[in-house]
Structures are given as structure tokens and as C-alpha cells.
């Protein structure tokens, strides 16, 4: 009786250790993503960005965190208190648990499940609940309108994301993320599926409610949308969740299209670099696109956003699924 119990406790401890090894660097990355965003946008607009706190403003994220932590938590009197407090927690948790299946390198993954892609789709489709609960529980018009916009937008773009993922799955022949990366040895999928890569980048902008599709927090029309009633740490959890979601979506994009942890060419100086470094570099590349889009593009109008999702992205991705499967069948290239 004692032996299996000890074994189980040991296994649980190892898993907890692995989770901490992923989550702690992730939170640091989130903090410094906000810094990188301000610096990059500053450079694009010929400004310096944060420069005051620490050398080159490097301690700015910590100062921001401390500020949010010390603010007063305000819970509106007419809000639905349990749901109000639950909503940011759900957003933050969902942004974290997606990382359970992301492979950082060959075999470097917390849980190497067979249906990894479906798991990620499930997690990202749940993200809408945090926002819609926040909007409803705040009992405020602006927050509710923001929540409605956001949920309609996220559901619409999830459909095209699903179809884009199907094209990748057709070529890889597996729902396991490590197998998908290994299938890209030799040819990363963004080369044959370049149009889908572009659609995927645009769709993840919409899915994470980022510029130019950040209508849920459109400050000009909705004050700031769903999180207008939140303050202090509850607001910080939304903020962290949004940025962690950006990193997660970038990781998914690099796994599906940019070859995950694989080096660009399997030649001497490039394959000395360990896989996780390549993976992080690719994530940073996609994150740069996120920030670049924010600094460059004006915000979409809401009906244009829905039109783009349903009348452009959906037919295009569906067409590409048909073309890809036809091509694979015709040339007998289907993975067994």
C-alpha cells in the first residue's frame, strides 16, 4: 500500500514542478511582452518608449505590476459578485492551461496527448466565457456591449481557424502536436500553405481581440468594453490573460506553420542551436507581427469585421481544405 502511494505522490510532485517550469517563465514573458510592445511601438512612432524605471526602462513591467497590485479592488454594488470575480480567473486560467500540450522541443512537453490540436481548440473556444461573464456580471451597458461583440467575433473567427488547422492536419495526418512538428522536417507548412498562414495570422489577431480587431475594448465607442468595471488585480488578470493568449496563439502558429522547434535548415551551425531556442525565436517573430499590426493598422468597423470573417475567410479556408485534400489524394501524398 505504501509503495504505490509514494509513487503517486512523487508523480504528482514532478508534474507540479513541470507546470511551474512552464508557468513562471510564461508570466515573466507576459510581463516583458508588455515592455516589448511599448518599446517596439515607440520605435515605430519615433519615440523611446519607457525609459525611466531602471536601465532602458527594463523594470517598467515590475512597476506596473506593483501599481496594479496596490490599487483598490472595486466591486460594483449592482454587479453579480460571484460571476464578477470568477470571470477574470477563468480568463487567466484558460490562458495558462493551453500550455499543457505545447511541445517546446522534441519530447519537451508536459502532456503529449493524441488530441493536442483539439485540446487547444477547446481551450481557445472557452476563452469567450471569461469575457461574456465579465460583461454580464458588471451590470453595465458598455461592458455588456463589449462582451457581446467579443463573443460574436471570437466564435466567427474560430470557424476559419478550425478549417485552417484542418488543412495542416490533412498534411500531417495526426492531431498530436509533436507529430505535426516532426512532419514539417524538410518543408515547413507556411511555404505550401502560405495563404492559409496569412489567414491564420489575421484570425488569431481577431481571436485574441487584438488590433486591428480589438472592438471589444474599443475605447472610442465603448469606453473600454468588457473590462470597464474592473480594477486592480482583477483587471491585471484580464490583462495577463490577453497577453498570455497572444503568446499561446503565437506558439500555435509556429507549431502549425513554422516548424515548431526545428531549425530552418538541418545544417551545421543551425542545428547546434537547441530546439527550444528556435521555438522561442519563432514565437517572438509572430509576436512582433502582433505588435506591428497594432502600431500600423487602424481599427476595423464591426460590420466589416464580421463580413471579413464570414464572407472572406470562411470560404477561402474551406476552398483551401478542398484543394489540399484533392491535391493530396491525386498525387497519393496522404500520410497513412
Amino acid at each position: 500500500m505504501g509503495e504505490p502511494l509514494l509513487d503517486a505522490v512523487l508523480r504528482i510532485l514532478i508534474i507540479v514542478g513541470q507546470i511551474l517550469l512552464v508557468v513562471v517563465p510564461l508570466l515573466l514573458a507576459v510581463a516583458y511582452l508588455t515592455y516589448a510592445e511599448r518599446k517596439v511601438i515607440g520605435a515605430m512612432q519615433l519615440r523611446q518608449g519607457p525609459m525611466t524605471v531602471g536601465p532602458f526602462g527594463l523594470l517598467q513591467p515590475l512597476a506596473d505590476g506593483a501599481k496594479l497590485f496596490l490599487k483598490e479592488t472595486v466591486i460594483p454594488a449592482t454587479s453579480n459578485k460571484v460571476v464578477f470575480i470568477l470571470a477574470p480567473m477563468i480568463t487567466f486560467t484558460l490562458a495558462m492551461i493551453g500550455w499543457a500540450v505545447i511541445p517546446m522541443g522534441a519530447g519537451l512537453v508536459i502532456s503529449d496527448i493524441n488530441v493536442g490540436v483539439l485540446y487547444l481548440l477547446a481551450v481557445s473556444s472557452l476563452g469567450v466565457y471569461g469575457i461574456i461573464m465579465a460583461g454580464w456580471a458588471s451590470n453595465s451597458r458598455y461592458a455588456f456591449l463589449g462582451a457581446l461583440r467579443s463573443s460574436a467575433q471570437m466564435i466567427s473567427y474560430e470557424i476559419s481557424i478550425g478549417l485552417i488547422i484542418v488543412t495542416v492536419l490533412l498534411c500531417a495526418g495526426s492531431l498530436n502536436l509533436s507529430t505535426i512538428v516532426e512532419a514539417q522536417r524538410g518543408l515547413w507548412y507556411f511555404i505550401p500553405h502560405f495563404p492559409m498562414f496569412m489567414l491564420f495570422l489575421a484570425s488569431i489577431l481577431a481571436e485574441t481581440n487584438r488590433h486591428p480587431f480589438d472592438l471589444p475594448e474599443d475605447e472610442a465607442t465603448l469606453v473600454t468594453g468588457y473590462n470597464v468595471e474592473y480594477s486592480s488585480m482583477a483587471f491585471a488578470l484580464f490583462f495577463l490573460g490577453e497577453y498570455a493568449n497572444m503568446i499561446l496563439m503565437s506558439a500555435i502558429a509556429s507549431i502549425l506553420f513554422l516548424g515548431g522547434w526545428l531549425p530552418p535548415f538541418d545544417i551545421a551551425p543551425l542545428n547546434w542551436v537547441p530546439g527550444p531556442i528556435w521555438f522561442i525565436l519563432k514565437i517572438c517573430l509572430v509576436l512582433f507581427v502582433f505588435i506591428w499590426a497594432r502600431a500600423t493598422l487602424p481599427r476595423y468597423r464591426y460590420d466589416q469585421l464580421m463580413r471579413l470573417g464570414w464572407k472572406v475567410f470562411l470560404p477561402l479556408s474551406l476552398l483551401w481544405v478542398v484543394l489540399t485534400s484533392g491535391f493530396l489524394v491525386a498525387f497519393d501524398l496522404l500520410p497513412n
Partner: protein
Amino acid sequence: MTIELALFYLLSAVTVGCAVMVIASRNPVHSVLFLILAFFNSAGLFLLLGAEFLAMILVVVYVGAVAVLFLFVVMMLDVNFRRLREGARLYWPIGALVGVILLAELILVTGGWAFAGGFQTAAPIPSDPSVTNTEALGRVLYTDYVYLFQIAGVILLVAIIGAIMLTLRPRGALRRQDIAQQVHRRPQDTVELRKVDTGAGV
């Protein structure tokens, strides 16, 4: 093994508790949220059974899409639920009767039923460790039952068309936006520069 058993009891207890709360909670939005939690725990039960694909599909389809629509409708509709509940005290004997009948039927089916000799019950397919869950489902669905699968698709298509037809109503003067026309507009088509004399007007 014991951990799995404990998980099973935990998940099923929460599922049943949530199912009760769905009909017991006063706020309809809370009902939907409990329904979502119930879906989640059922997905967990599927996972314990080793049906990983079904678990994920349950979350993606029911929690990610269907329940969101429920939540939308419940939040948007201004239904007076207190008035809806007024009749509850009148009708509870009928509800209880239906429940008792269902319970009796279930007990009859699971307890006292014996199949005649030679009757083949549907045996569970032995799990094949070399084939993943998803592959096994796909093989059965797309080879053995491909026609049924197609029919299901056609039925869904009919349902979509029906739903669109029901909500489509002719609207009067609708000013549609033609993106191509907007893009091809030139300044000289729409803007005219005129020299206007002071005080004379156009």
C-alpha cells in the same frame, strides 16, 4: 486505480450536483453556467473512459458553441422568470409522476430484463492500442457508416436552411454596402470644386 476511482466519483458527483443546480438556481444565467460545468465534468468522465476525442469534441461543440448561444439568448431575452415559476406548485405532482415512471422503467430495464437465447447484444469493440481513438472513430464513421454520415450532414443542411428561412424577412429600404463600388470610387466622381462668389451662394 484508486485515483481514477476517486476522480470518477468526484466528477460524477459534481455533474449530478450541477444538473440539479441547473433547474434549481433562481437566476437563468447561473443555470446556464451550471450547465456548462456539467458538460465539463461529463467531458472529464469521457476522458476517464479513454474516449479522448469525444471528450474534446464535447467541450468544443457543446461548451464552445451551443452553450454560448444559450447564454446569449438567456442574457438578451427579458423573460420574467418569477412569472414562469408561478405554476410550479400546481404542476409538481405531474412532474413527480413522470419522474417516478421514468425511474421505474429504468429499474425494469437494467434489473429484470433478460434477452432471449441467441440474441446478440452490442459488444464493445476491444480497444486496439496501435490505433488512436480519433483514427478508430474515423475508420468506423467514414467506411462502415458513410451513408448515414452523409445523411446526417444533409439533415443538418436542411436545418440550417430552415433556420435561415424562418428568420429571413423582407426588409424595406435597406442600404446595402458594396465594397467593390466603394473601393473603385474616384474623387472626381464625387467631389467637385467650384469657385463661389462671396454672398452669391451656389
